[in-house]
């Protein structure tokens, strides 16, 4: 893939390729190789993107649980609105 997408676009694209829901940590792992060296690539910032994208309706909560550290773990999937926004991605990111 030629152009690197803005992080938020990439998160949405990643979710569009997944059948199952994803956690913040999963996204971090998958995008590590492309964005890992950048200052913006932090867990807190990632959580912030996800919670805003959910409020805006681009993604939905698929499941939520509490882990052993008593932290809330959300699992997200792309919403219909999110899918409709994929048209803004560059050609090489569009799927048939």
């Amino acid at each position, binding site marked *: 893939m030629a*152009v*690197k*997408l*803005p*992080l*938020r*676009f990439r998160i*949405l694209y990643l979710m569009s390729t997944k059948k199952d829901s994803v956690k913040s940590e999963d996204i971090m792992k998958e995008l590590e190789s492309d964005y890992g060296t*950048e*200052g*913006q*690539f932090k867990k807190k*910032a990632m959580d912030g*993107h996800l*919670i*805003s*994208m*959910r*409020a*805006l*309706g*681009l993604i939905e*909560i698929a499941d*939520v*649980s*509490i882990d052993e550290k008593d932290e*809330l773990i*959300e699992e997200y999937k792309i919403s219909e*609105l999110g899918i409709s*926004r994929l048209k*803004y*991605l*560059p050609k090489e990111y569009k799927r048939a």
Partner: protein
Amino acid sequence: MNTTERLEKQEIGHAKKGLLYGVASGASWGLSGVVMSIAFGMAPFTEGVSLLLAPIVGAAMHDGLAGLWVFLYNLINGKWREYGRTIRTKPGMLVCLAACFGGPIGMSGYMLGITLAGPSYALAITAIYPAIGAILSVFVLKEKISVRTWIGILLSIAGVMVVSWVPPDAGMYPYFYAGIALACLAAIGWGTEGVISGFGMDMVDPEVAVGIREAASFSVYFVAIIPIMFGVVGYQMIAAAFTTTSLWIILIAALLGGGSYICWYKAINMTGAARAMALNITYALWSVLFGWLLIGTEITPTLIIGGLAITCGAILVGANPKELINLRSK
């Protein structure tokens, strides 16, 4: 507390933070305006050959320097690479379009309105922009707006009008009606900006969006508005400003203005365009408060009554954060 309750609590917390950003955007915009008015009282802005020169050049410098501050901020938080990536996408281009409505149309109209019709009228009229934005956001963004939120928006606008109202002085403002028309244009520009950026910013990081917004606005001023309206004289004033103390004052105003824009765009992202705009216009109240503290603006009974109306309106807008969890109707 079960899992669902914790999730709801977290989401309400996010929405409430968005409301706080909205208020912070109003406070910093109010302070930025007062600081700009101090700069306009200094050389070279007092020596303009045309009545319109200083406000436009000042607005251009404000946006340019604010863009620089925001870029520094994004450099520190590691987002500077996002500028180039974002601008190549359609939502990124929408942010540039929003910038043209907000900067060259909104800000110039506002500055010219202040010059030609006086600050009270310009402020009162431009404060209608959230209503314009709210109407547009219902249709364009499909945002949910309750009756209570509408009452809040209208009450805030009424408050701004009360705060700003003083009888017109025909002797001081010979181009009064042109000023009123330009202030109306500014309100339309800002309302449109909020809605377009709400649309583009589903996908764009708000902090990056503001950086692009300020840079795009400055570029339009620098390559189109200034040369078309003033020619070389405009550039000469910018150059002159760089050698005087007024530069430092504008740097402070731009820092506040850039910060205000970050808060505003974050609020749009977290709490919706209509509510963010309604909280943003509390700037009318803040500018009175800061004007009183910094440059000795007089506090009158109408200021207090109007101020209360603005505050009550803002509270109504943000009263029930529960309904903010889903910003859009399905």
